[in-house]
Every structure is written in structure tokens, then in C-alpha cells.
């Protein structure tokens, strides 16, 4: 699925989920999402970075400069407390929706 087709809410949820365990920099986030979704979602930088900055300004993410695995300076993102709460809310919403849509699609 092309990144542009990602619903904004879905992208947010994926980013939050990707950061649930540890802080990551931009490239690692998109790799993590690809890995988590078995390569279904290839998040392009044109979607990723606006989303990261928007979520940071919303207070869900915090960022800090650090060293990447190959010793390069990189900006790392991590979940804030608000971000964790958001992850939980969005996860529940998503499950409800997925269940509902799944049921709808299975109706014959």
C-alpha cells in the first residue's frame, strides 16, 4: 500500500506503536513499521517527517539528538506519557473499528 493512501490516524498509530518499546530515529521508525507489518507499509519520508513533527508538537513524542548505530548524529523520538495514553486510546479505537468492519465485510 502506498504511503499516501495511509490514513493519517493509521500512520499515527503505527508510529506510536513502533516507539512503544524504545526510542528510535526516523529511518529506524520506518524500518520498524515495515518490519511490524511484514513490509505492507513502506512509510515514505514525505509522510513520516511531517507526522513526526506534528505528533511532537501535539506532545505525544519527545525528541533528542543522539548517536545512531553507525555512530552518526541522529534525532531520536520517544513516547511521552501523553503519547502512551494516545497509543492506548488509538489501539482500542482501532480494534473496535477493525472488528466492526470485519463483521460488516463477512455479512453475506
Amino acid at each position: 500500500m502506498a504511503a499516501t493512501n495511509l490514513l493519517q490516524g493509521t500512520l499515527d498509530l503505527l508510529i506510536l506503536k513502533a516507539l512503544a518499546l524504545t526510542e528510535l530515529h526516523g529511518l529506524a521508525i520506518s524500518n520498524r513499521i515495515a518490519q511490524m507489518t511484514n513490509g505492507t507499509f513502506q512509510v515514505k519520508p514525505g509522510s513520516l517527517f511531517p507526522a513526526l513533527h506534528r505528533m511532537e508538537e501535539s506532545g505525544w513524542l519527545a525528541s533528542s539528538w543522539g548517536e545512531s548505530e553507525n555512530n552518526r548524529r541522529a534525532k531520536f523520538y520517544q513516547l511521552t506519557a501523553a503519547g502512551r495514553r494516545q497509543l492506548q486510546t488509538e489501539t482500542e479505537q482501532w480494534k473496535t473499528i477493525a472488528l466492526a468492519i470485519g463483521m460488516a465485510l463477512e455479512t453475506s
Partner: protein
Amino acid sequence: MPLRQRLASLGRNLFQRKRVDSDLDEELRAYVDQLASEKRQQGMTADEALRTARLELGGMQQVKEDVREVRTGRMLDQLLQDLRYGARTLRKNPAFTAVALLALAVGIGANTAMFSVAYGILMRPLPYADADRIAAVFEQYAPRDFQFGTMSIRDYQRWRENNRAFENPSLFRSWRMDIGGTEGIPEQVQGSSVTAGFFSTLQVSPIAGRTFVEGEDKPGNASLAVLSESIWRRRFGASSSVLGRTILVNGAPSTVIGVMPAGFEIPNRLTEVWTNLVLNPPGRFGPWLYRGIARLKPGVTLEQAQAETNNIARRLMQENPYYKRMTMPIRSLRDAMLGTTLRPALLVLTGAVGLVLLIAVVNVANLMLARATVREREMALRLSLGAGRSRLARQLLTESVLLAALGGLAGLAVAWGGINLIRVWNPGNLPLIEAVRLDGTALVFTLLVSLLTGVLFGMVPAFHSSRADLNSTLKEGGRGANTSRSRGRTRAILVVSEIALSLMLMVGAGLLLRSFVNLQRENGGFSTPPSQILTMLISPGNKKYSDAKVGLPFYDEVIRRALSVPGVEFATMTDSLPPDRQGDADTFRLEGQTLGPGEMNPVVTHATVGPDYFRALGIPLVKGREFTRRDDPNSTPVTVISEGFARRFFPHQEALGKHVGYCCDGSNTLWMEVVGIVGDVKYLGLSTDADPAYYMSFAQSYGPRSFFLVRTSGDAALIADALRKEIQSIDMGVTLAQVGTLRQAMDTSVSQPRFDTMLLLLFAGIALLLAAVGVYGLIAYSVAQRTHEIGVRMALGAAQRDVVRMVIGQGAGLAAIGIVAGLAGALALARLLATMLFGVGSSDALTFTAAAFTLLLVVLAATFVPALRATRISPVTALRYE
């Protein structure tokens, strides 16, 4: 989301833009590097890896732009960007900016000034507690039918007896008072006699002492005086010892009990002394000298009060058959201060100045459109580089609003100047002018008007730009024919509406001008040039002059001395003066007439004049004789009547030798023989019809205070000082007031129409100028655009004449449409003016034609310059440039 976080982001984005941007740069670069190193690990060469990584990023700038797009304060940021860009654009086009700013400054400035005047006079709360609960009460009845008619003490007592709607009905009367005493030289001031409840109705406290209390208007009460702050300062050095002092008011000792604060202006601005009006039981019906003032009881509406007073009026009508169709109109305090004509005039002027602003807006929109054509390529380029159309429209709007805001700022300066000019000069003698000032309300008004203006004139070009056709514009090298054509059409429509609006204003101004000229031609019934007549109000001061035996010789001496001043031809006394100083008005009786009980003849002008009065003013003697020096207390009482009086009360009969009775209570009637008939004179204003009048001889109807009137061979103003010296050398206690020529009085009496006319002329002039600029701009631009076409035409043999005709034809076409539309609008507008017009109909054909022709001429003149330029187009050059 946490607000604090948001605000922090906003602050960072706005004020640390460089750091935020370089952070983003670095973040993205790191991303590319990491991606590239991943690729290398997957086996790509360094170059290949970097290229692929960049490709995947999809354009560094695009990503950065997308990130910026989501940042907090993005709108604000863009706004600042647009403002900066707009300011730069304005700076780079000084000619455009100057013309637009000038139009806006004049338009907004005139509106702010007019708004301040209208707001100050019509709306600013009066400085009295609950001023909208205070009402002035009048009498209106046929046949005199004055809207603000005065009442008599007897009517007032009826009102009080039957009153339930008002707190404490009070009565007052304004008149001139002689103030004298040991504190200074005697002088005449404007004074007012008021009943005990007057001050408590207004609820204004004195700054020293007290005001009148209940019962101080009862017969036999001592004479008391309340002073204004100004006279207290002038005559008593603002000393608190003035309380309890005795001063002479009209020769009667009166005790000063209080001082009112500055700015207390009831009944009018000039009032300096208030005395207690003593309600002696009236000996007869009338005189009508008084106005009512009262505060509504809580919970009572103005309508309820009006119903009640009209009921009282019905009762008065039953008691006095003289009153016909009588009402007791209640007016707000403000309306009573404004009179009947000012409010509609101010509203018309405010509307007119709104039209001026509309024309200015249209003009600037036109300029913007012209410039939009020039900027078409810039816009197309920005569109093709990925700017959103709405973003472009927003930027254009921002520019417009910026321009309007600057215009508004300049307009504030214009308004400030205009308001101060009007305040200082007060050419219209406007009441409440002190309440006119540039304040917060006016600032808010200016701000709103500026914003609205900017949005209005920015909308058209913004709309056009957002529709611009990218391909054709870029292809045609910035001469996009399609958009230009639609833009040209829009501009033509704008110019046509400018012409139409201007015509409306010009017709309005023309009608007022014609009406004003008519007023100026109105001579009030006398033929002596008014600049040769000097008048002044003389008061001998000392009480002994109240006795005719002392007073008449005094005035004989005044006349004798006046005649000794070089240049003086006639000198005489009168209590009434044209054009608007009616001394007295009263009813009368006619010889042989039987009146039913309570029935009366109408109240008409009743003037007391000395010998030579008619000759000095040049009032024609129609029949009989004038008063002479022999018409004194010892001879037969005589009267001279006006033609109107003779026509109405002695129809088809010889009036000379008949007798007219001066008022009116049975045996007290003074019967006078009619010895002369003179022409009608206007004593109630130039724009009203002359009232019927009967005159009495000064010596037979003596009163100590009188207007003194001299006619000179030259300019009367020059002898004022000499005359003053002569008169005061008779008795130092004599005071002179209201010294001025009749020319000045005539001018003052039409000051409000003059004010209205001047302002409307000014507005129409601005409108005409703006319209001319608009037409010129449109035609000049269209000639420039058609250079090629005109070149071809001339190459094919068109003469210069043909070219001129073609260009002027275009202008004439616009003018024709504009004028037709404008005439329709003007007809509607003129109807609003109807009440302000004198001697000219609201659909006066001459005015409409003249205005239309003037406008046509101006439009053609504005077209002529570009037409001439068109003839200078060289076919060779025009074609080569193609």
C-alpha cells in the same frame, strides 16, 4: 493536547525559525546518510547508494515544506511572510502605492471624521444620569404647528395636575439676563428661569452650594441664582465666598446659592445663570414662553408618557377652542437639543461619505486588477512551482488588507485634522460639538472599515488570480488574453459603478447647492444690503430705565449720539430682527369681531419698533404711513400691520383706520388704529414663510431691553466700536451684546445648510476626482494593451482622428452606462434629501442634467489624454515589437 506544549512550539517556530530549520535540515541529512549506508551494506556502491537514498527521500525541499506545513503557527507564519512580501511589493511600486493610499486615506479618513461627528452628536451618551429617561415636553397645535412649540404656565399647571408618567414635571424659559453688582462691570448673559424641580430632574450636582429645592418656585419666594462655572470664574475669580452673595439679575437683587460644573449645558451651551422661575398665577391665557422637562418614572415607557400627555393636550383643547389638533410631543433630551433638521442631515452626510468610500474601494480594486495583470506571470510561475491557488489568493488578500490598514492609518490623520477643523470652526453651529472627538469607538470603526475595505478591494483580484489559466499565461509570455479579457470586463464594470456612484453624489450636492443659493437669494423681506445694518442688544442695566419716562429719553439720546457717528444714516429700536429673531408672538383682537368663550385669534409675530425701522431696513411701505416720533405714550395708540396680516384678517376690506386689540383679557385690551401696511418680513428663519405680523410703536410699547439698529452708508461693521463708545458714555451701566451686522446674522441663520452643502460638495468633488482617475487608468491601460491593434489600424490607413474617436468612444460608452445607472440611483437618493431642500424639487431636471453633463465632460477629459497618446503610436514600432 497540552496548551503549554503548543505555545512553546509556537514560540519556537516563530522566533527560533533558523534553529528549527537547521534542525530539520540535519535530521533529514542524517536520514539520507543512514539510508545510504544501509544501501551500501546491501551491496551498492557509495554513489549509487546515495543517489537511491535521495531518490527515496523524494526531494529534500518538498519534505521540508511538508513538515513546515504541519507546524504550529503555520498560518501565522505564512501571514508574517505574506505581510513581509506585501510590504516589499508595495515599496517597489511607489506610484501604485501612493495613489491607492491617497484614495484610501481620503475615503477612510472622511468616513472616520464623519462617523465621529455623527456619533458624537447623535449617539454619545449625554453626561446626565440615565439621560435617556429625561424628556423635553412641548406643545404642537394648529395653526402655528411648531414641532417644538412652547407652552404657557397655565398649560404647565394642567400638565402637573394630570401627570402620572413623570417624576417631577419642570418648566424653564431661556432669555437674556443683565448681570450686575459690585463684583464687576454689568454684562448681558444667556440665562434661564427654571422651576424648583429642574436640577433634580437632570440629577447634576453643583460644584459648590446647592440648587433649587421644592417650593422655591412658589409665588413670593425670594430671588435666587445658580451660576455657571464660567461666569463664576469670570466675575468672582472662582471664589467660594460667592455663596450667599447678592447679585443683580435684571436689576433685582438675587442670592447666589450654587455653582454648576463646567459642561452643564441645559437648556443650552451658552447659559450662565439659572434663576428660580416663580409661578405667579397667570393673568391671562399665555404667554407661551416655556418648555417642559421631566424624568420618566421607573417602568414608564416613552410611549406611555406620550399617550398621557396627548390626553392632557385633548383636555387643554376642550378648555381652549383656540388649540386645534393639539398634541404635547415628548422628545428625548438629545432631540430637543438637536432640533429637527440636524439628525436627517447628518444621516444623509454619513450615507454620502459611505458612497465616497465605496468609490475609493472600487478605485483601488481597479488599480489592483491593473497590477494583477502585470503580475500575472509571477502568479503563474508560483502556481507552476507548486503554490496552492488558495494560498495565492490568501497572499493577495493579505496584501490588500495591509494596504487598507496603511490607508486607515493615514486616514486617521486625515480624520484627526478634519475633526479638529470642524470642532474649532464649527461651521454648522452644531450643538453637542464638544462630544465630537477621535476616541476608542472611532478607532474601532476605522479598524473595521479598513479591514472591510481591504477584503472588498482585495477580493476581486484574488478571485481572478485563483482562476488564472497557467498554460496560456506562461505560453503567451504574460499577456494572457483570456484572463485579461475577463479582467478588462471586471474593470469596466468597476469604472461604470464609480461613475454611477459619483453621479449620485453630484446630484445630491447639486440639489443642496441650488437650495442653498435659493436661501442666499432670500432677502427676508427687506432690501437694504445686510452688510450696511449693524444691530446690537442694548440693556440699560439700571432699574430706573424700566420706567418709560426715564427709558424713552435715554433711547432718544442713544439715537441722537448714534446719528452723530459719521456714516450712520438711520438709527432705531426694535425687539425683532430678520431673519430669525422673533421678539414676541401673541394673539390679538379685531375690531367688531365676536369671539366665543375661550376662542382666540392665532398667535402671530408681534414686533415693537421705533420710527425709521421700516425705512432703515428697506421694508416697503405698501399703504398708509410708518411710525413717527409723534407716536408716543400721549398720542393715539397706533399699529402697522404686514401685508400678510392684512390679507388674512382684513380680506377684501380697507384695513387702514380699523382697530387691532393688543391682548386680550377683556378690559385690558389696548386698541390700536391701523395706520400703515408694510411688506412681509421673515422673523422665523429664511426657509419658512413669513408669519403675519403686527407692529407697535416703541414709545407706546416700551421695554427697557431692545435691539438697537443702525443703517450706515458703508460697511456697518467698521463703526461698531465708535457706536459702543458713544452709547456707553451716556451711562456706564449700559451693556451691549450680540453686536454684529445683519450680514452675519443672515450667514449664521443658514450655517447648517451651508455646512451640509459644503460637505456634500466636498464629497462629490472627491468622488468625481476618484472616478476620473479610475476612467483614466482604465483607458490608458486599454490603449497600452491595444498598441499593436492601433498600430495595425494606422498602418492600414486609419487617421489620427479615427483613433481618437475610437478611444474616446470607449470612455463615452462607459460614461453613458454609468450615468444612466447613476441617474436612477440619484433619483432615489434625492428623495432622502427632500426635507433639506428649499425652493428646488428633489427631481430638479436642471440639477440632474448639469450633474450628468459635468460628469460626462470630466470622463471625456480623462479619456482624452490616453486618446492623444494613442495617436502618437507609430505603426512601425508597434508592429516591430510584436
